[in-house]
């Protein structure tokens, strides 16, 4: 038995297998095809949660995505716990484990419910008023307490083991919503042959056909027609049908975000199956068929479990075969609730009474209800519901006052009318228009290539809906370039029609009352709260919304917005359109971070770039550091060495014998063309025209503002060919900067740029023995100082592999940078390493590289410069071509502020105590005894222990630094003041003799 409230013969899952599940530890049985909500109701369970603010017991309000109350936690295992899942959407599977939320110690006895009694203290806007004093208590006391007491589910605290996928898709016609309207539109579009995507948030297509027992299309029951039509669509090559797929966002140029719930409904999803799939769809035309959402009646204690939307009760009966009670009352202001009463009555459920606010409505459903013997009361209101954990009665009174009568019920079905779902239309930047006659907002002015059809467009009646949708689908296809359709429009044989209903508080919950008549269930906002907001001075609906939080919960006010607006308008004495509607924002329903992130996690969070030599360094036990996306060998510790010891050893080895360094990550750009030198003249401060082929030069690149942007050694391979190097981190932006000038400022130059960063692996061999290591492997290049002086480049072969061999140094030692095609990088490195072993060479990493260059006062752009440093500031005036008429930055460099006295200049610092190593970033002052805040005159940019110098060394930007040589300055630190002496930037081999040593 799948629940005591399952009605034999009712529903669409008669042959379904049973499925066991648990809720708050209690075992139940449902059937496959159930939602968690229908399965709970089948077992007579209405109480499923506690409310957000007052901890009031709550039941199941709806049968769809608009559900504000029935939010539960679904737990698959310790890491797979999903909070705030709508029980009305979650499909049942064997073994499903659900827990209620926001209650302690239990759902039926919740201590937090004291806040319901204390509710006068928790009125609208209480956050802003009550917890203002003392100020410090907000952070330490009030906020944590409020957050703990309120809030919804608990986030999982383990990494999400599921995976999520994403897909870009393109189509001609995207149909959002798979009810009668969406299906008709999709059929019309698909029959023309254009690419169609049809998506619906439910597991089954059909929309309101799930409960409309009176619908007949093409001679079939409406729901059966929907299934057949969707099966036909799914079989077409040009159609993609996406069930369980919610369109959550409508973005510019018909770009729609959809989330497909791929495996949340499965008992044991396979490892290959994503949990959710993010679809990013670009559609030529969009058909919005998002339907309408039923509104509840706003009366006292309308939130008691067992009180639900009439359409939902009908869905549970007609689709799932579940009666929501045995003795139900109906409270309505429109016809559609009558159909629910009739269906339930026919299924054997007692309908205690229908209470209709309207005075003297007429129509076939009313006649039919009466004919079935249901008591029908006109012009009356339900002024309160009885019961606490479950509704037990409804108290009825004539709407203009008079005698009360209490009727025992175990459920109340209510309907205040239907609100067109204009969320996606509004997200598309369309403007809604208020229809005064039907009292609803419908699509008005369109901003994108889309069309609304059916209930979301305010179209009443199945026949009109199908006609409108079919025509719109055909037109959308035609507009997207289709030829004429050849299909047949579905024929509606029988349908139901819905009337209008009412907005705002019902009698008994009017301005003179203090009852809790809920407008927004999820955020616990009552009619009284909205009136209070107006009385406290809120005039705009946007202010009322924020003050009361009406419509700001995760359901985004799907059931509450119109009621809230009507109450605010009434209190303000204004018409509804004058008060306006709040903005609809994406997402339509909550979207998991997993879906948004999709593939971009773990190794795909961001590319990890490794050089061709990386495997060797890894095998040697190198420690790596992240430099942008690159992994670079930081240092190569030997057994028992810490970082300090390894770096000291590497630094000494380079100056004593030689070191090998993987410099492959340096940016490299090949500049080719007859105007290559002219282009280089414009992009770098240095002169290039006279640089001979085969020679190199250190180049500085500025931005137009005169500040250093990048630097690097440039080799001239031929009159029309330069091999330019950039910093590792600067490579992409330098390329972009060069392309920008070439394409847009200097397009007359015949020169082209190609990134060759990854074509060449670069092995730096530095140190007195460097030539001895390289020479035996090189063919065709004279390695003598005369033939290959410092700052020159030759092409030849090494290990039989083509090479661009640079004689250059970033260490101050005799040095080379061996460029070889990347696939040969590791093998050539290994050959050089073998040679190096004969001389006692070491591999060194980026830390040693930094120390060695600092010993020589060579700057690192981005470390010793920060985008506000000129060549002069950095002591690099010598690299600026004084005779040049133009280069990027020439004018910026001459700006008054950039040539003013007292600018920060790069200098060396030596601590008075040579053992003390300064902290990079530390501030520098002239007088450490001055009052705080002290006047800071500069900061440390680079600082290291230099084993080669036997002391600490540092570079710093100091105001007027070059005029302070020999001065003592101070670096105040938390544990004392450090005395430093201003020095030149070169700490080792000041004469530079070792370049040829």
């Amino acid at each position, binding site marked *: 038995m799948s629940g005591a409230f399952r009605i034999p013969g009712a529903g669409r899952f008669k042959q379904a297998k049973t499925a066991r599940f648990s809720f708050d530890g209690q075992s139940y049985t449902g059937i496959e095809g159930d939602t968690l909500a229908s399965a709970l109701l089948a077992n007579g369970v209405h109480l499923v949660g506690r409310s957000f603010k007052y901890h009031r017991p709550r039941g199941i309000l709806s049968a769809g995505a608009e559900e504000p109350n029935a939010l539960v936690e679904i737990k698959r295992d310790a890491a797979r716990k999903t909070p705030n899942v709508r029980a009305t959407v979650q499909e049942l599977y064997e073994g499903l484990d659900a827990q209620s939320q926001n209650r302690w110690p239990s759902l039926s006895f919740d201590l937090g419910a004291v806040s319901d009694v204390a509710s006068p203290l928790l009125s609208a806007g209480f956050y802003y008023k009550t917890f203002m004093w003392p100020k410090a208590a907000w952070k330490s006391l009030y906020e944590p307490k409020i957050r703990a007491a309120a809030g919804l589910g608990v986030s999982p605290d383990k990494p999400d083991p599921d995976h999520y996928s994403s897909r870009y898709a393109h189509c001609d016609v995207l149909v959002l919503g798979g009810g009668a309207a969406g299906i008709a539109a999709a059929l019309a579009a698909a029959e023309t042959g254009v690419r169609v995507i049809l998506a619906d948030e439910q597991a089954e297509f059909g929309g309101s056909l799930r409960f409309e027992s009176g619908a007949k299309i093409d001679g079939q029951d409406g729901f059966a027609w929907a299934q057949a039509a969707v099966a036909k669509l799914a079989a077409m090559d040009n159609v993609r049908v996406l069930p369980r797929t919610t369109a959550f966002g409508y973005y*510019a140029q018909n*770009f729609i975000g959809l989330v497909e719930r791929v495996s949340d409904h499965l008992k044991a999803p396979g490892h290959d199956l994503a949990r959710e799939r993010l679809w990013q769809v670009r559609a030529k035309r969009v058909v919005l068929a998002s339907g309408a959402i039923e509104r509840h009646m706003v009366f006292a204690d309308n939130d008691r479990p067992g009180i639900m939307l009439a359409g939902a009760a009908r869905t549970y009966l007609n689709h799932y075969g579940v009666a929501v009670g045995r003795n139900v009352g109906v409270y309505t202001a429109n016809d559609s609730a009558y159909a629910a009463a009739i269906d339930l009555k026919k299924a054997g459920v007692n309908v205690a009474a229908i209470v209709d606010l309207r005075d003297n409505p007429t129509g076939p459903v009313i006649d039919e209800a009466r004919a079935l013997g249901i008591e029908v009361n006109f012009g009356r209101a339900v002024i309160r519901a009885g019961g606490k954990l479950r509704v037990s009665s409804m108290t009825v009174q004539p709407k203009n006052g008079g005698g009360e009568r209490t009727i025992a019920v175990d459920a109340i079905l209510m309907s205040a009318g239907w609100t067109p779902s204009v969320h996606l239309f509004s997200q598309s930047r369309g403007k809604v228009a208020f229809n005064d006659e039907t009292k609803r907002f419908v699509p008005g002015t369109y901003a994108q290539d889309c069309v609304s059809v059916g209930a979301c467009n305010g179209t009443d009646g199945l026949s009109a809906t199908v006609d409108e949708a079919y025509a719109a689908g055909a037109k959308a296809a035609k507009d997207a370039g289709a030829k004429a359709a050849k299909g047949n429009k579905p024929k509606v044989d029988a349908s139901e029609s819905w009337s209008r209903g009412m907005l705002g508080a019902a009698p008994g919950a009017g301005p003179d009352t203090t009852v809790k008549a809920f407008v927004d269930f999820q955020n616990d906002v009552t009619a009284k709260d909205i009136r209070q907001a107006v009385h406290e001075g809120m005039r705009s609906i946007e202010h009322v919304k924020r003050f009361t939080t009406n419509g700001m919960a995760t359901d985004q006010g799907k059931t509450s917005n119109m009621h809230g607006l009507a109450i605010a308008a009434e209190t303000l004495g204004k018409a509804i359109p004058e008060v306006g509607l709040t903005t609809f924002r994406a997402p339509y329903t909550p979207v998991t971070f997993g879906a948004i992130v999709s593939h971009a996690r773990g190794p795909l969070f961001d590319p990890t770039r490794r050089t061709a030599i990386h495997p060797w360094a890894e095998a040697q036990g190198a420690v790596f550091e992240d430099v942008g996306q690159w992994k670079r060998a930081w240092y190569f510790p030997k057994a028992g060495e810490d970082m300090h010891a390894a770096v000291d050893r590497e630094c000494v080895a380079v100056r004593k014998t030689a070191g090998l360094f993987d410099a492959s990550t340096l940016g490299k750009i090949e500049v080719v063309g007859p105007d290559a030198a002219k282009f280089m003249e414009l992009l770098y401060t240095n002169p290039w025209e006279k640089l001979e082929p085969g020679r190199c030069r250190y180049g500085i690149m500025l931005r*137009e503002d005169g500040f250093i942007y990048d630097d690097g050694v440039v080799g001239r391979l031929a009159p029309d060919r330069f091999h330019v190097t950039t910093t590792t981190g600067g490579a992409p932006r330098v390329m972009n900067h060069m392309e*920008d000038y070439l394409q*847009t400022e200097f397009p007359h130059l015949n020169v082209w740029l190609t990134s060759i960063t990854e074509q060449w692996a670069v092995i730096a061999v530095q140190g007195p023995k460097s030539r001895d290591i390289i020479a035996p492997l090189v063919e065709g290049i004279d390695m003598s100082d005369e033939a290959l002086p410092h700052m020159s480049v030759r092409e030849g072969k090494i290990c039989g592999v083509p090479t661009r061999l640079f004689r250059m140094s970033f260490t101050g030692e005799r040095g080379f940078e061996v460029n070889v095609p990347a696939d040969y990088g590791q093998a050539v490195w290994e050959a050089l390493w073998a040679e190096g072993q004969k001389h006692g060479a070491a591999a060194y990493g980026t830390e040693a590289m930094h120390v060695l260059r600092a010993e020589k006062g060579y700057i690192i752009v981005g470390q010793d410069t920060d985008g506000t440093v000129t060549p002069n500031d950095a002591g690099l005036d010598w690299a600026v071509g004084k005779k040049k008429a*133009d280069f990027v930055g020439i004018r910026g460099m001459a700006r008054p502020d950039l040539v003013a006295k007292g600018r920060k200049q790069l200098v060396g610092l030596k601590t008075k105590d040579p053992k003390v190593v300064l902290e990079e970033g530390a501030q520098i002052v002239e007088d450490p005894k001055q009052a705080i805040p002290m006047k800071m005159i500069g900061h440390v940019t680079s600082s290291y222990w230099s084993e080669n110098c036997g002391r600490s060394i540092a570079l710093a930007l100091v105001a007027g630094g070059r005029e302070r040589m020999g001065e003592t300055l101070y670096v105040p630190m938390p544990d004392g003041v450090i005395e430093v002496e201003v020095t030149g930037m070169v700490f080792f081999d000041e004469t530079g003799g070792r370049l040829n040593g």
Partner: protein
Amino acid sequence: MLLIRCPYCEEERPELEFRNAGEAHIARSANMAGESDDDFEKFFFIRSNPKGIIYERWRHMHGCARFFNAVRDTVTDKFVMTYKAGEPKPSKLPGAGK
């Protein structure tokens, strides 16, 4: 994500392939070194930042890699037109005068 028509690729391509490059039609002086402080300030620092029609540069960074110009409405975010780098600022916009 916007769709942007690349005038070199002659089709609309997804925004992810593009990169904005700031306001268009700000010419770099042929006599840069001789610019006055005021003129340099205007050239380098001052941008129009209009509400409505803006002329701006884009680069089809991950496509044909060309820089080009675009006319975009900053209110609606809609591209009015795109044209190749070096072409003059359009004197009349399509759809103007409606």
